[in-house]
């Protein structure tokens, strides 16, 4: 369920980065205000715990497949939303760097999908409401399961939206939703069962841990509305501003149109107009992304604009592409040789 760099556009990546950066900044500030030194090592080690626990698999009966922990919900229950969000973000960052899970541009998306929904939506609005002030084991279990399922459903839906907005994958919106939501229903149930069982385990063994977490978390409730509003505003502003920027600069498509038509001076007023329409188009329920497949081909005009598609140039492209790769590899070999030669001298 990690988004990959290859599937998102810079616009979507940058918007989600800005949103996530805002959330990290906000959570960091909240933690500083809390000024609980004890939490610093606790967060670090719990992150390592989640990372290690994710690698332990158990067998799902009667399916032959295996399941493992995601972790967002357990962290939120143990640490409260702000600290949990930072821990989740750090785990995903390390995974992006070392295991290339997702990638750097998609990191914003991934932190948002897997951190924001469980920590800032599912935890305060579902788990806390169900578990209440005086949790019992049944309440913890129900709350944990439902919250984990909802968190993952929202996360999966966000993956769909991000992919469709990026327009790299051809998967139409409906198909993708129908693919992702049921799969993540299954994953969500597993995650919910694990979270509930582990939290119950801790609650039986060391109830004071959860009680202290409950105390910390209860400070949080007040600001939640403001936070959600803030996220919405940041997303809209950055997304809007960036899409303006992106469309007023010729992207690949307009660029190639430029070159094939040889028309340097597309009227500026016309261009502003076009970019305005583009911005409007983007804000208006994904008209030229997800749903365009069902339309009777307005994109027919789009395919010929791929750099001058006639047999001659595509052969040139193929030969040139091949040569480029050979050149790159040759440069690599030369550099390596030179390096090995220069080693003994040092």
């Amino acid at each position, binding site marked *: 369920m990690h988004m*990959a*760099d*290859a*599937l998102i*556009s*810079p616009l979507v*990546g940058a918007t989600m980065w800005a949103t996530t*950066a805002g959330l990290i*900044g906000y959570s*960091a500030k909240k933690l500083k205000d809390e000024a609980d*030194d*004890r939490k*610093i*090592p*606790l*967060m*670090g*080690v719990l*992150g*390592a715990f989640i*990372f*290690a*626990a994710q*690698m*332990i698999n158990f*067998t799902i009966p009667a399916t032959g497949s295996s399941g493992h922990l995601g972790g967002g919900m357990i962290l939120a229950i143990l640490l409260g939303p702000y600290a949990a969000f930072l821990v989740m973000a*750090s785990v995903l960052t*390390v995974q992006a*760097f*070392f*295991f290339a*899970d997702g990638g750097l541009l998609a990191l914003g998306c991934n932190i948002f999908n897997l951190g924001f929904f469980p920590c800032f939506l599912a935890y305060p609005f579902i788990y806390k409401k169900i578990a209440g002030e005086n949790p019992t084991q049944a309440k913890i279990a129900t709350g944990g399961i439902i919250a984990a399922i909802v968190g993952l459903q929202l996360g999966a839906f966000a993956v769909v939206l991000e992919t469709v907005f990026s327009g*790299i994958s*051809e998967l139409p919106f409906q*198909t993708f939703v129908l693919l992702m939501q049921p799969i993540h229903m299954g994953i969500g149930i597993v995650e919910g069962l*694990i979270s509930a069982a582990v939290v119950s*385990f*801790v609650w039986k063994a060391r109830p004071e841990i959860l009680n202290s977490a409950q105390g910390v978390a209860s400070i949080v409730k007040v600001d939640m509305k403001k936070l959600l509003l803030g996220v919405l505003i940041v997303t809209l502003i950055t997304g809007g501003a960036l899409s303006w920027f992106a469309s007023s600069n010729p992207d*690949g*498509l307009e660029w190639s149109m430029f070159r094939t038509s040889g028309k340097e001076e597309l009227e500026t007023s016309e261009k502003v107009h076009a970019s305005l329409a583009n911005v409007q188009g983007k804000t208006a329920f994904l008209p030229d992304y997800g749903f365009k497949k069902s339309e009777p081909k307005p994109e027919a005009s789009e*395919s010929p604009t791929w*750099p001058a598609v006639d*047999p001659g*140039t*595509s*052969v*040139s*492209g*193929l*030969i*040139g*592409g091949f*040569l*480029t790769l050979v050149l*790159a*590899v040759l*440069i690599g070999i030369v*550099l*390596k040789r030179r*390096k090995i030669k220069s080693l003994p001298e040092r």
Partner: protein
Amino acid sequence: MNNIGKNSFDIGRMDALAAGDSLLHRLDPRAKLITTLVFIVAVVSFDKYALSAILPFFLYPIALISLGGLPYNYLLKKVLIVSPFAILIGVFNPLLDREILFHIGSVGISGGFVSFLSILLRFVLTVTAALILISLTGFNAVCESMRKFGVPKPFIVQLLFFYRYLFVMTDEADRMVRARSLRTFNSGTMSFRIFISLIGHLLLRTLDRAERIYRAMCCRGFDGHFYLIRSMKIRVPEIIFMSGWVSLFVLFRCTNVPLHLGTLITGIVP
């Protein structure tokens, strides 16, 4: 060695690579971080049918791997391991977008196939760029340069702390899983009940460990602040590295180099 042990060994190996000493290793981490980000944005900003235009970007990973003395095979294997998701999503493109884009001989190539290949190219490039960054720089240095770019300190501290204890906790998990495995005659299946008890005990140990670490930190004078050593400097090599690559990326992004090259060749050899 089981899965868990392998993973922590893997991270250790990346760190060992980062401890190497080459011109590239010695560059300021900020220069490498910025160049990597520019590279990734340039690669993903192509439109979805771009294919030959993306190829020149392979120069960057190839040059860095060669100059930095990194192992090709190892990095390639890491890329392959994480490829399933991109392939899974991309593989629908050839099925959904069947419009013929161009012909090679008599074989028509559909737009979906082109965009699928394009996704794969992007995937390989962006993933290797991130892996190269870490194996040339090391995680701690990357964190410190993020701090310099204004990432909030609590998050940086969290990253550093997490990274430090990651090895401890994976070792701990590894031992527990191995112990269970030995007592069940290497049975591969783990029941849910056992799994929960394993994770639960791991969590309890984690919480205890956190408490011990906190006390140890207090004994050593921890007052809630972390002091990071900062000895980074942007000098001439960094500026050359950054400006050189960035201008190359801009060139590759704005002109289709392979197309020109191919036209040149087919022009000379008709």
